[in-house]
């Protein structure tokens, strides 16, 4: 609030604030009986206060007659579109395969693909990941000579 009220109001200020609050309640008809009697006694002897009361009552009545303007029909749709756009579709879970990027699904697919590739390489006879068995037959020495040296 812009009113300079960082500190509690002093005695006179507190009285003024209480009177203003009472006038506000009086206009709205929510003042207690004791306070209403107190205020009416003050109003009876203070024309300026009576004028103030009439002014605020007139403002209160006029404001209450202001009509309520309904929101534009498309407001909700616009908000939904904005949320989808700003979150790149990640906000709502329902659109997991719509405009949302399905990072979880992509991760699972990538892992499955890696496992399949590893199994393929494992079973391959040419580029296998499988270690060469220790007791595998070695080529005969003369065969080694056939292999061209770099």
């Amino acid at each position: 609030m812009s009113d300079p009220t960082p500190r509690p109001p002093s005695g006179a200020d507190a009285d003024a604030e209480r009177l203003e609050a009472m006038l506000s309640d009086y206009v709205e008809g929510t003042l207690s009986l004791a306070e209403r009697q107190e205020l009416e006694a003050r109003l009876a002897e203070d024309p300026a206060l009576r004028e103030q009361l009439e002014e605020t009552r007139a403002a209160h009545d006029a404001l209450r007659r202001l009509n309520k303007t309904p929101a534009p029909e498309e407001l909700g749709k616009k908000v939904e579109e904005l949320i989808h756009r700003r979150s790149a579709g990640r906000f709502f879970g329902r659109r997991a395969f719509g405009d949302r990027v399905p990072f979880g699904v992509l991760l699972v697919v990538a892992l499955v693909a890696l496992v399949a590739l590893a199994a393929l390489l494992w079973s391959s006879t040419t580029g296998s990941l499988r270690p060469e068995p220790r007791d595998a037959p070695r080529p005969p020495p003369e065969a080694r000579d056939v292999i061209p040296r770099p």
Partner: protein
Amino acid sequence: MSSDRQLVRRLRDRDEQAFRELVAEHRDRVYNLTLRMLGNRVEAEDVAQEVFIQVFKYIDDFREEAKLSTWLYRVTVNLCKNRIKYLARRHDRDRDQLDDTNEAAASAALAAPGGTTPRPDRALEGAQLERVLQDAINSLDEDHRVLVVLRDVEDLSIEEICAITGEKDGTVKSRLHRARLALRKKVTRHL
């Protein structure tokens, strides 16, 4: 409050249907509040959209000490205040966008009760009064504006206004009195 809790839980679960329910329930009040605070239809719609986006963005931070609606209106008031400051900085004082629909509705609201069709002169009178009042609201400082809009236009309880503004009961009532007084002076000057 328990339905509030359920709705909040669904919102936290990013339930799109919950989002739609929240918007459907509060959009008119949020929009009317932004319209009365800003006095400009385009700005009001823009801020109203931003309100719901902020609510969804920060729903995980909502501590449920207050009602969801109170939190929603607090967000609305804060965003309106920010927009007022922003517009003031830009010297954008064009508040003349209360549209024809609004003015027609205003005249209807101010016409004689009983559902009778307002006479053209009465309709014009109503529209003029609507504009004069809106101009007077616009000329109040933002804190006084908040109070008259929340209490006299939106009819929120003093208790709820205290929760929204974070001010004490007596302070709100006292400032409300001053705000009405200031508004009345401005209206009298216009008429």
